[in-house]
């Protein structure tokens, strides 16, 4: 909640002629990306730069990782160079958590394998709050809102983080996915599960479409892309069944024509571009709260770097 309120104040910065604050001057943020990413990396970079921090970008390709250096050694090297915070995206679940035990600075999880992606969940919550709780949003939760998360939940770190965060904020979360794309432990998540998207649509305030992560699919989870798209893709006809005020979200990158139709992605209900803009603000808030002061109370950190 503190993060969302901070982001709310920082959002006005985007409209100003000088989009820069001196707060983190002299601090160094390292973007450590072991997996490909456009928006998360650029978003973190923009966020850090707007707060005047120095940003060092690191991608596994073309670095010593290709020579076989381990995550720990890379991290210690970066720390020796004076990194105050490390933003890590890694293909292995739990990488950020391991890293946090090795380095002194703050560690921000920018997605670890199929586990979590906390800042994405924060920016989604921020977007939902701005869109659907008009008026004084400060301090407001998401009570009473119904969020349906659709698609490849099994491989989605976004889904897991969103289920946890949105339910903490008071929203009712429903997952709609084919049985093969739901994790085994889904019964222990604080959300409902449905195999039928069409019956969920009329009562949803928010529909969050997930990308079908073909690069992580080693088995046949559904007969064909076309069949998946027919049953779980959001097309114009399905969008028409949503309530008047409902919004359509997608964490990106989109597979147009698979989980979301192009007309839907470009409609006024879609918040996809807004989500990117809010990503910068939310990440600024996170960086400010982690690096802006002295020591942060330990209890607050797990929300950012689980």
């Amino acid at each position, binding site marked *: 909640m503190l993060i969302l309120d901070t982001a709310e*104040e920082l959002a006005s910065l985007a409209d100003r002629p000088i989009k*820069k604050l*001196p707060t983190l001057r002299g601090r160094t943020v390292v973007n450590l990306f072991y997996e490909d990413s456009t928006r998360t990396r650029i978003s973190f970079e923009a966020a850090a730069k707007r707060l005047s921090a120095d940003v060092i970008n690191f991608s596994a390709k073309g670095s010593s990782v290709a020579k076989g250096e381990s995550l720990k050694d890379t991290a210690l090297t970066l720390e020796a160079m004076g990194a105050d915070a490390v933003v890590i995206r890694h293909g292995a679940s739990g990488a950020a958590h391991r890293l946090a035990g090795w380095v002194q600075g703050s560690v921000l999880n920018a997605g670890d394998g199929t586990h979590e992606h906390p800042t994405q969940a924060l920016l989604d919550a921020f977007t939902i709050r701005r869109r659907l709780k008009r008026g004084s949003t400060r301090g407001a939760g998401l009570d009473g809102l119904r969020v349906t998360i659709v698609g490849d939940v099994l491989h989605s770190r976004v889904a897991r983080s969103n289920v946890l965060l949105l339910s903490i904020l008071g929203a009712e979360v429903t997952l709609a996915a084919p049985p093969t794309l739901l994790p085994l432990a889904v019964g222990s998540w604080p959300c409902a599960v449905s195999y039928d998207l069409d019956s969920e649509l009329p009562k949803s305030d928010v529909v969050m479409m997930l990308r079908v992560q073909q690069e992580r699919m080693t088995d046949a989870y559904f007969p064909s892309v076309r069949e998946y798209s027919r049953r779980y893709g959001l097309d114009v006809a399905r969008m028409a069944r949503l309530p008047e005020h409902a919004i359509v979200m997608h964490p990106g990158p989109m597979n147009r024509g698979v989980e979301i139709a192009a007309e839907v992605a470009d409609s006024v209900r879609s918040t996809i571009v807004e989500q990117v803009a809010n990503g910068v603000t939310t990440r600024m808030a996170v960086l400010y709260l982690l690096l*802006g*002061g002295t020591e942060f*109370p330990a209890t607050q950190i797990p929300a950012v770097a689980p």
Partner: protein
Amino acid sequence: MCAASSPVAGRDGLPVLDADEIRRALTRIAHEILERTHGGDEVILLGIPTRGVPLARRLAARIGEFEGLEVPCGSLDVTMHRDDLRLHPARALGRTELPADGVDGKTVVLVDDVLYSGRTVRAALDALNDLGRPRAVQLAVLVDRGHRELPIRADYVGKNLPTSQREVVHVLLAEVDAQDAVMISDDGSKGGKP
């Protein structure tokens, strides 16, 4: 220039100004602003959160009463520009709200409750710098308690209050604290205004 003769400047959580005295001080400052800016044209009042904001609103309301002039009023959060951020845990941000026309070419009057080291005002000047180029910047405070650490001076002062650095000045305003008063106490347990 003191607003009113206060009870002997107390040293143990004693009141320095009561509600009526605060009201008179603000009335006088409102007149002074009008006088100094030749009628209050092109003036913007910007309060520094938390307690500068209601003070700025009250001043704007007074000026409205006296001259029938609507003075734009806003707030300016300086948290991100402070020089002591590293000395405290991260603070929650206040709100920055500018009048629709912005600050370019206007006379900006910054409003705060207590002027002490001057560091908040320095941060405010930096913050303002990012928002535009005012024609002039002036400073109005309810209490000036001395001990400046920077070459900063207030243009409008509600009350000059000689203090020792061990003392803490609390400004209470109805909008925030349910009553109007200025109190001074020895080494306050509430960790008052820096």
